[in-house]
């Protein structure tokens, strides 16, 4: 496991004994590492993954028969995927580059081939729809993409035409080779918008000269010669102001001419159905639809939407209605002829909350995919409530004592109910044991939710960029509730705060979501119950001014909700909840409430103290000149983090005390100078109360993106080394020294000595996308870093490897302390991947939460996919293994017990016999 080179480093003195010792140590260490991997039978037992694709831009159904099961979508997350239309399961998925480079311009489907133009007309790709394999890829000439269509020659589709801003090109469908490319005439004045082929020997290009006329050019299929050029006059229709009219027509087969009926979209929800008369020149309006949404490749589908109910209309007559939903911005209809020649249809509805719903004939919802979860912004894990009986028992302690006798009665009655519940549970177990295992379903519903023995099952509250909130059961991954917040701006920033946990029965748990508009800075609050997702009817404070900072105080009101302070741009503070009790507490504590504000655009960090009248005073200020460096990130410590040991026992039995400052902030800056020789990354450790710069380090010849974790007494950061062109990890640890200044309590105001800072740097052989540290209930378990890699793997890296006290030369003391000798390169071992082959595409964040078991930490990785698992950084020291042999142990116990009994009896008999003798 270890490379032999590392063994060499142990034995500086090259004595044989030492070599043996160290190799033994290495072997032990490697055993420790092996046991971390997942066994085959544990796959999927404690973990689950959900894959998403994002908001659908283009969708196609496989063919026009009723039996086809596949459908294909291209999404705004640059993903091309195929679903099973019966279940909504993902068949396959291709994740392209993020950003405009991988954006999908159009998706066309013909038979087994799916054609895609990617990256604003940069690439033309053909996919095999059966297996999702790439047939071919062709690089197109530069120019922004306008339109594309299939071109058929004598009833078979052989070509595809791609229209760009100033050129049109034809490609063979079989191999992507270019047949011809022609520049469009007058491309400065004319906006070319559409390309069309009706199966003849020509391909037509439609151009619009705004406020003037239309141009139609016909190209010869053979050599791209312009056959004719026609200009026509415009129609007389009223267009919604500022709206670009869109033509929606339908062409069932590329080799035949399209239907004579077509839609013209005149406004965001205003369509007109028009019909081209048989003479081919005059157009007659058929029907006006307002308000409604029209599906794209449609035979006939419109939805006049009253209250956003979906009703389907065939071109002339209505044919179906479906249930209501959130307003659908997009609609994909698949109509087909059934066996009895009636029209059948299936509809794929993409709603504003990014849900994808599939509806079948008589308006039945077959499945719904919550694609909003492809873009999770922030999340929290909340403990589940106790069961009713447990809660009743708990509630007994909260109530006021009313005499001895009633108390005893109450206790007895609650114990009777507990007994009843236990008996019912036993009966259920017995009943289910008789049934075959496959039939037993452990369906989690919102009613049956309750905390398990070790608090391993929690409620995951996820906030998505679309403004939809989800409550997900962490054990199964099923969505238990969802709530769509309307009127959320697309660029809003979210902050999720748990104000009251489930621990305060009978008060329900309470979460607050702070939604802040990034442009105006104005914020709104959404207060809800995280277990049921219901909105709480609590009076919300008026927030007329932009909010700069929000902080959760450890102060609780009479209902056990923590107080949230909101600081506006005039440094005035609003408390929520703002009851009299809270305001009184705040007044008493005002002089000990400090907070900081960071203005990264001005490089300004400043600290404030609360005054009794809830105004604030500025007490410290640190300014990092923006000409030199800019602040990229600031992180404090997690408030729910526990540190078990105050120090580290060193080899000579003395203790090195950790500098555990709960107010410490890690501020990371990047230089404005990006030249590889002069670029640097700055790390500042600033006390958030006094503004004192505890440590200031500069990593030269380095640049971002910097990912870092700040916890306990250490900061780990990762950056790009511009000189050596590699990723490097650096770890900073702070120690008070061998004596504590004040061992009972930590106060930032009374800690005059600066801590000792140790730092070491390592090479990391992979770029990373995100980083987080494991978290356990009491902080006894050793820490691991969870590192999300671009490959989708999540690496659990023992903190032991990131220890600035790793010695260069092994000594007796360092071995005593179990320090690994320094090696410049950090290993990546495949058995450290906690998600084995369940890769998480585009991992964006990792959330860790403690469970009721000290050894176990719950991990959720989110990005395009969501992956939940448990990690055991120090192995499961407090849990019996799955394969623990209860039978053997108990049989041995019983055997010994009986042996003792029998031998006792025998001894008695023997004694009696001897006495008689």
């Amino acid at each position, binding site marked *: 496991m270890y490379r032999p080179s590392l063994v060499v480093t142990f034995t500086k003195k090259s004595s044989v004994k030492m070599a043996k010792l160290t190799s033994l140590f290495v072997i032990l260490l490697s055993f420790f590492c092996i046991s971390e991997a997942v066994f085959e039978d544990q796959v999927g037992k404690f973990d689950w993954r959900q894959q998403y694709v994002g908001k659908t831009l283009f969708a196609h159904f496989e063919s026009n028969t009723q039996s086809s099961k596949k459908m294909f979508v291209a999404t705004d997350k640059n993903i091309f995927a195929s679903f099973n239309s019966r279940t909504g399961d993902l068949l396959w998925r291709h994740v392209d580059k993020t950003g405009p480079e991988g954006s999908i311009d159009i998706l066309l489907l013909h038979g087994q081939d799916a054609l895609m133009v990617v990256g604003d007309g940069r690439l033309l790709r053909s996919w095999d729809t059966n297996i999702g394999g790439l047939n071919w890829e062709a690089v197109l000439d530069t120019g922004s993409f306008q339109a594309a269509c299939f071109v058929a020659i004598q009833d078979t589709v052989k070509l595809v035409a791609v229209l760009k801003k100033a050129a049109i090109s034809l490609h063979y469908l079989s191999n992507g080779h270019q047949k011809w490319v022609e520049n469009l005439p007058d491309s400065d004045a004319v906006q070319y918008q559409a390309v069309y082929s009706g199966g003849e020997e020509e391909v037509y290009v439609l151009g619009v000269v705004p406020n003037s006329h239309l141009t139609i050019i016909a190209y010869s299929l053979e050599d791209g010669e312009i056959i004719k050029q026609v200009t026509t006059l415009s129609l007389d229709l009223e267009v919604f102001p500022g709206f670009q009219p869109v033509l929606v027509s339908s062409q069932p087969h590329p080799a035949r001419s399209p239907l004579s009926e077509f839609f013209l979209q005149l406004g965001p929800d205003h369509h007109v159905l028009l019909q081209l008369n048989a003479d081919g020149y005059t157009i007659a309006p058929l029907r006006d639809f307002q308000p409604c949404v029209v599906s794209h490749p449609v035979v006939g589908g419109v939805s006049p939407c009253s209250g956003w109910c979906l009703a389907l209309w065939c071109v002339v007559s209505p044919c179906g209605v479906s249930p209501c939903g959130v307003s659908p911005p997009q609609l994909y209809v698949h109509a087909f002829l059934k066996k009895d020649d009636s029209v059948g249809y299936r509809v794929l509805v993409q709603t504003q909350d990014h849900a994808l719903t599939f509806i079948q004939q008589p308006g039945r919802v077959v499945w719904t995919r919550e694609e909003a979860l492809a873009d999770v912004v922030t999340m929290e894990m909340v403990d589940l409530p106790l069961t009713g009986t447990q809660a009743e028992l708990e509630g007994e302690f909260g109530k006021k004592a009313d005499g001895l006798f009633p108390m005893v009665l109450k206790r007895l009655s609650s114990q009777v109910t507990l007994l009843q519940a236990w008996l019912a549970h036993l009966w259920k177990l017995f009943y289910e044991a008789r049934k075959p295992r496959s039939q037993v379903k452990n369906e989690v519903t919102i009613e049956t939710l309750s905390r398990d023995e070790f608090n391993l099952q929690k409620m995951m509250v996820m906030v998505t960029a679309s403004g939809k909130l989800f409550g997900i059961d962490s054990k199964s991954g099923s969505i238990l509730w969802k709530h769509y917040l309307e009127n959320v701006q697309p660029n809003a920033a979210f902050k999720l705060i748990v104000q009251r946990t489930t621990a305060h029965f009978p008060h329900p748990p309470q979460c607050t979501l702070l939604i802040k508009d990034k442009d105006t800075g104005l914020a709104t609050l959404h207060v809800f119950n995280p277990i049921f997702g219901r909105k709480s009817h609590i009076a919300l404070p008026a927030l007329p001014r932009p909010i700069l900072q929000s902080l959760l105080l450890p102060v609780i009101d009479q209902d056990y909700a923590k107080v949230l302070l909101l600081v506006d741009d005039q440094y005035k503070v609003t408390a929520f909840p703002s009851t009299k009790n809270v305001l009184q507490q705040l007044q008493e504590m005002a002089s000990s409430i400090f907070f900081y504000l960071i203005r990264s655009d001005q490089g300004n960090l400043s600290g404030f103290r609360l005054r009794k009248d809830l105004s604030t005073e500025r007490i410290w200020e640190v300014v990092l*000149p923006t000409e030199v460096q800019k602040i990229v990130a600031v992180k404090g410590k997690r408030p729910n983090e526990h540190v078990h040991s105050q120090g580290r026992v060193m080899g000579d039995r003395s203790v090195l005390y950790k500098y555990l400052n709960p107010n410490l902030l890690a501020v990371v800056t990047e230089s404005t100078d990006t030249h590889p020789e002069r670029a640097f990354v700055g*790390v500042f450790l600033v006390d958030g109360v006094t503004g004192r*710069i505890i440590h200031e380090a500069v990593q030269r010849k380095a640049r971002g993106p910097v990912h870092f974790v700040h916890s306990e007494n250490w900061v780990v950061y990762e950056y790009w080394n511009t000189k050596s062109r590699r990723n490097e990890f650096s770890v900073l640890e702070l120690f008070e020294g061998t004596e504590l200044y004040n061992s009972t309590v930590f106060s930032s105001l009374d800690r005059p000595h600066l801590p000792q800072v140790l730092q070491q740097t390592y090479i990391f052989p992979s770029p990373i996308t995100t980083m987080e540290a494991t978290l356990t209930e009491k902080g006894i378990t050793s820490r691991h870093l969870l590192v999300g890699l671009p490959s989708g793997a999540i690496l659990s890296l023992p903190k032991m490897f990131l220890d600035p006290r790793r010695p260069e030369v092994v000594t007796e003391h360092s071995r005593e302390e179990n320090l690994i000798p320094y090696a410049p390169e950090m290993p990546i071992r495949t058995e450290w991947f906690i998600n084995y082959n369940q890769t998480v595409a585009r991992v964006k964040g990792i959330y860790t939460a403690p469970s009721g078991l000290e050894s176990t930490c719950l991990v959720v990785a989110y990005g395009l996919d969501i992956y939940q698992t448990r990690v055991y950084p120090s192995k499961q020291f407090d849990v019996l293994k799955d394969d623990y042999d209860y039978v053997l142990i108990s049989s041995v116990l019983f055997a010994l017990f009986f042996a003792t009994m029998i031998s006792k009896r025998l001894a008695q008999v023997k004694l009696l016999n001897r006495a008689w003798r």
Partner: protein
Amino acid sequence: MASVPRSFLLLSIIPTILILCADFACCNTGRKTGDGLDTDFSGFSVPLEHSFEVDDVSRFRMRGALQLRGGRETSVSLSQSQLSEEDRKTLKEVAAVDGLYKIRVPRVSLTDRQTERQMDGYLTAFVRACSLVESHLSDVITLHTDVSGYLIGVSIVTIPGACRGTEVEDEVDLEAFNTTLTIIAPTNAPQPETALFIERMDIEHEKRGKPQEQKSFFAKYWMYIVPLVLFLMMSGAQDQSGGGAANGGGR
């Protein structure tokens, strides 16, 4: 791995070690700031102001003058006057209501000679007034600079830092500041120490290479193998001559 020259590594280590123990140093110790190219030996002075008011509204007054000297050897010294009778009284009053004692210095650059040295704005820090009184005005002021020599922060602590409520004789103890002044530049974070590691590995290889000239398995254990083979051959010969028939029958 071997691309980082050794000399460079050493260079980067030395200042790190030097500056690691910065907090033990006293005032007027020189610090190396980044790559200060302009060497300005003339130095300049900026005001150090303080504010302590019973109503906690900042009204900064002159406390002293900081003599800053930029360039390769950055140094700082402070000349300050004694507290007046009135100030001492106010300070004790502020200490009694647990008010704050704040100091501020203007934002300046230690290296820039061409452009305006002073930028708008101040750097502020505070300490509890009671701890200042109880420590008998013995404070430690630290100025922090960034890589290019801009002052980015100031901090003040008192030693001891606690407020225990002990009485202080103002006449004797609250007259003059006993200030320790330091200026700290950022430390250079270490690079991965590849060169040293490789060197050490090479030494190990050499050391191990000499004494253990890898003998072959046979050369090492010939004294066991030869008798064993001889023994097997002997017994095999016996078997063939003596018990050959019996063996054949058995099979």
